[in-house]
């Protein structure tokens, strides 16, 4: 693939959203901005969130579209936004929001790396303490490989 699934430009170290819906919009806007999805995708992300929370645990939420919305995905990409203040995600604290656009499973490997990183609380702590998007990308490891 000629474009990385997660580029540094898709990582935001200090997101501006303060509610769940704003955070989903912020995540979706990044995906739209890099041309990974059409502007129809956001509606599917919100719809998916309404079905079941995408809160994963360990301060992480992973908003993504529904199966029906997959035509609005142009290529696999992720967005990664960190928030200084916890966002209330259906009663859970969320500091990291990973927006997912998955096409033909191309995002799975990266997603699984992110999952493994987030399952380790020490790694989560490091991500919280990271001083820049570049450091965060480094911590996430060579996710694009």
């Amino acid at each position, binding site marked *: *693939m000629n474009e990385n699934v997660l580029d540094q430009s898709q990582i935001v170290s200090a997101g501006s959203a303060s509610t769940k819906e704003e955070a989903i919009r912020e995540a979706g806007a990044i995906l739209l901005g890099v041309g990974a999805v059409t502007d129809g995708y956001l509606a599917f992300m919100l719809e998916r969130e309404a079905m079941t929370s*995408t809160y994963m645990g360990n301060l992480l939420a992973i908003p993504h579209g529904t*199966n029906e919305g997959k035509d609005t995905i142009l290529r696999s990409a992720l967005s990664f936004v960190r928030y200084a203040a916890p966002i209330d995600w259906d009663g859970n604290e969320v500091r990291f929001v990973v927006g997912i656009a998955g096409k*033909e499973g*191309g*995002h799975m490997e990266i997603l*699984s*790396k992110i*999952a493994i990183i987030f*399952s380790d609380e020490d790694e989560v702590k490091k991500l919280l303490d990271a001083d820049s998007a570049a450091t965060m990308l480094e911590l996430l490891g060579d996710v694009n490989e």
Partner: protein
Amino acid sequence: MTTTSTTQTGEVNAQPGWRVGVQRFGAFLSGMIMPNISAFIAWGLITAFFIPTGWTPNESLAELVGPMIIFLLPLLIANTAGRMVYGTRGGVVASIGTMGVIVGTDIPMFIGAMIVGPLAAYLIKQVDKIWAGKIKPGFEMLVDNFAAGILGMLVALGAFFGIAPAVTALSNAIGAAVDFLVTAGLLPLASLLIEPGKVLFLNNAINQGILTPLGVQESTEFGKSILFLLEANPGPGLGLLAAFMFFGTGIAKASAPGAIIIQFLGGIHEIYFPYVLMKPILIAAMIGGGMTGIAINVAFGSGLRAPASPGSIFAVLINTPTDSYVGVVLSVIGAASVSFIIAAIILRASRKRDLELLESGSDGLVAGAAKMNDLKGKESSVTSTLFAGAGTTQTKISNIVFACDAGMGSSAMGASVLRNKLTKAGVEGVTVTNMSIANLDGTEDLIITHADLTERARQKNGRAAHISVDNFMSSPKYDEVVSLVTEQQL
């Protein structure tokens, strides 16, 4: 894997290794045949009705008969076997490979399917391992599809050149040996070859290729020939199926009465072959029955005027000359009785184990290969006790599935985390996958879902153990699963 889970009986550990091996092999055979029994029944009915000598001959519909037994049935068996070894992907490669043996010969290739199917699936499983996790994202599908396609082609070629001629040679050898025994006058001994040959679907090769020509010769000379009865006597099959009807388990038991009609009245002997194939020791019953039938006919000097085709009781009686009625009827009854008694003893002896098998869900619809590896020491009501205490579990967990609504996000992440933990714990032989709840197919041993979705998952697979988690990233339940699985590996 020869490890067994801790069981309360201790019986498992006392069994010698070879016996466990034989049981597993038997379970594997049964697993690849049994789910397809309905296809055999459909084929048997079509054949009994529509072939020229059938109940309601119909030339056009009779054209179903050939392709179904040449292609459909072997491919179904190959696919089922492949799935048991390596899921859907294994099934696909197994089917491709089996085409090689099918096209390579003229005889129905059941034995070929039963060899090539599992082998092909095993090969693709090994090949996949070579580059598992090393492919750049986005290329997995390309590599996967071409790997399976190319391997399938190679297996088909190998089977065409290797296995098909071997099976043909086997068929010819059996034919030649039968020919020898007949010529030497050692007729009852012919059953030793005819019966195994039959259940490998070499029945037509033996009957029409060897026995019928010789029989016709004899018949023109003496007005009758015993050779027409060597293979076509419906007695042994009747006895076997009747034994299943009374002492069998599960689908085999339930389908036996219908199979009797197709076999005994319809003359389609093929219908009972799967029952023998899934428990090969039953061949002893068939041989015993066959020998008895032949011996009786020899004693009474009875035979048929012409080939009984198909080998139904009606075709047999129609072709029986008046001086042979007693002998022929007795030979059918005698053969059926002997095969019934032997089969009944065998089925009785293994009944308890078969029932356990049945309860653990290995009968019927495709049971996973993983489960096949672990047939013993299983109890049916395992789920509720699963996490009561790690040591008390009876089910060996080898197929863990994370399920979520779409199967693209949270379940994938949960599966990654657990897989990572299992790898770190040095656990092998346990697969962790993710899918949408809609795709659960009943072969899962343990299903992990978000608390909101557990009920839905339970409806799809009530047999598996279910775990609900709220936190996919670091649920304490993961560690319980890891320690449980680790313990089971010991």
